[in-house]
């Protein structure tokens, strides 16, 4: 499916943040903003909710911890109990290092995989982008247009008034 976008190109993050607030106040829905670096305050300006990744991270960590403790207790305590250095079979203090390491291991990898999955990050043969300068030095605000692009002149004016240095139109095939 092909979508049309009006692209407002901004040179500065502070101008961009003001523009986002004004444009949203004018009742226009901002599709997305592409920036070369994380702009602080953009989440509030765009109304992006706080990510729930930390909660996921906590549960991944808990999984790792439980797995590590179960593994060590099952292997050395029940499946093949052995006396090592005269210590009890289930020598919990000695299980702490591995339990800690596996907690970190599960947290990190679980969260990284979740991040890649929900953000749609995976190796691709080619990556169509709105504007190649968005990874260099420009801030690109994309606003979705309808089939006829009838709002484009009005949006151009609105973006210009809010400090966009350029306004372009772009068609993107579904990706």
């Amino acid at each position, binding site marked *: 499916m092909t979508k049309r976008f009006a692209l407002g190109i901004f040179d500065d993050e502070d101008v961009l943040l003001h523009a986002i607030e004004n444009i949203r106040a004018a009742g226009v829905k901002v599709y997305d903003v592409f920036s*070369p670096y994380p702009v602080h305050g953009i989440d509030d300006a765009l109304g*992006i909710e706080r990510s729930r990744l930390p909660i996921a991270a906590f549960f991944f960590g808990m999984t790792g911890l439980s797995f590590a403790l179960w593994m*060590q207790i099952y292997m050395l305590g029940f499946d093949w109990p*052995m006396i090592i250095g005269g210590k009890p079979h289930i020598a919990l203090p*000695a299980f702490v290092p*591995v339990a800690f390491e596996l907690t970190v291991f599960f947290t990190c990898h679980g969260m990284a995989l979740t991040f890649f999955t929900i953000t749609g990050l995976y190796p691709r043969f080619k990556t169509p982008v709105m504007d190649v300068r*968005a990874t260099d030095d420009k801030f690109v605000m994309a606003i979705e247009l309808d089939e006829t692009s009838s709002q484009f002149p009005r949006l151009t004016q609105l973006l210009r008034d809010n400090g966009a240095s350029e306004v372009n139109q772009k068609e993107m095939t579904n990706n």
Partner: protein
Amino acid sequence: MQHVSSIREPLVTGGKTLHDVTQDICYQVEAKPNLRWMAALSVALFFLGVFFYSVYRTVWYGIGEWGLNKTVNWAWDITNFVWWVGIGHAGTLISAVLLLFRQKWRSSINRAAEAMTIFAVICAAMFPVLHMGRPWLAFYVFPLQNTLGSLWANFNSPLLWDVFAISTYFTVSLVFWYIGLIPDFASIRDRAKGPIAKFSYSMLSFGWKGSAKAWSRYETVSLILAGVSTPLVLSVHTIVSMDFATSVVPGWHTTIFPPYFVAGAIFSGFAMVLTLMLITRVVFRLEDYITLEHIALMNKIMMVTGSIVGVAYITEFFIAWYSQVEFEQYAFINRATGPYWWSYASMMTCNVITPQLVWFRRVRYSIPLTFILSIIVNIGMWFERFVIIVTSLHRDYLPSSWAMFSPSIIDIGLYVGTLGLFFTLFLLFAKFFPVINMAEVKTILKYTVDNGPTYNPEKAHAAHAHQPAIHGAPASAPVTYNKHD
């Protein structure tokens, strides 16, 4: 809105704009390799060859190729292992701990430091694996059922903890580093001209577009990864130190080992970061990003951790005397005055006296002196591990078993060889990957150039008269967006 003290030096000099940052850092990736890089790579490849030859001898003829004997049955292998793991720690400290402390200056060095971590851990892992004698059976260290029955791994052993610690450390560092690289790969991808570059950097960048939501998640992920990496880095060298501390060998069986090893690790790691950065900034013309201020700050960390190490040496000696344990006392007297006194003396000179020179501002800000100091510290930290390991083992409880250790040519070959492996990897990284985290440097750019009083272009140019600002005035819209202050 960020507030900066007016006495702070700018973090990036030369009045760089956002585009300048992309241009300066992508230049190295896009340009043809220069002669100096090729020369360095060929030297590194030669030593990599030495490494492969030594590995071949070790694996084909066995551990007898090394200089070990039945008394000193752990020597250069474990020394090198601890040394390399320690070097890795500075990278994680810069990428994780300094991120949590919001030290913005880390931005221009974290990428290369983290790469150093990963390559150092690869080098470190070679030694325990080779010391197994039959490295193809290395999977025995994992808790898999024995082929003859259902005997599992021994979770009471610090050596097994090491397996978990090092593999977690390696994979977590790799993921952290790669997630940081994704936006920069996207920058290179969007600038790439040739089809091969376009294709490879598109694959590497995972389809990153820099959308607001993706950045928001990216920041959350970075913060949490930093949060889990911080205790991780402390745990790794703690566990490495427990390889020694949980034994009953005099000189090893001490509770001071974990903090002492962690401080030593960061100390040697910062020395290695300094060595690498001083070369990188000159070879790749990054003097505006890795400034004298960065070097001075790293020197300060080196001084602090070096002083902790110095205190630990003295404490160890004191406790040996105070413990009233004859064997413990002898172990330390033997270290300082026995047949290996020269290694103890080198360790003390390099690690205790050298970092104290950094108190002098002139030393801290001097490139040649810092370079020499960083090399001396690395030598000293190698000797520290040698002293701990060999001098404790060579004379323990049973005088009839006392022996001396001398390395074989294969021991030396393996050590020099891992240096070759390390530099080969680092040079390839420096050529094909962006050596500085562009996205992160861009976030601090405005912070640097926009706070009028802190930034004085004339002064900056006079001090670092390297590349004048070409692309006009810096991004200079007044900072008025202060919703959160």
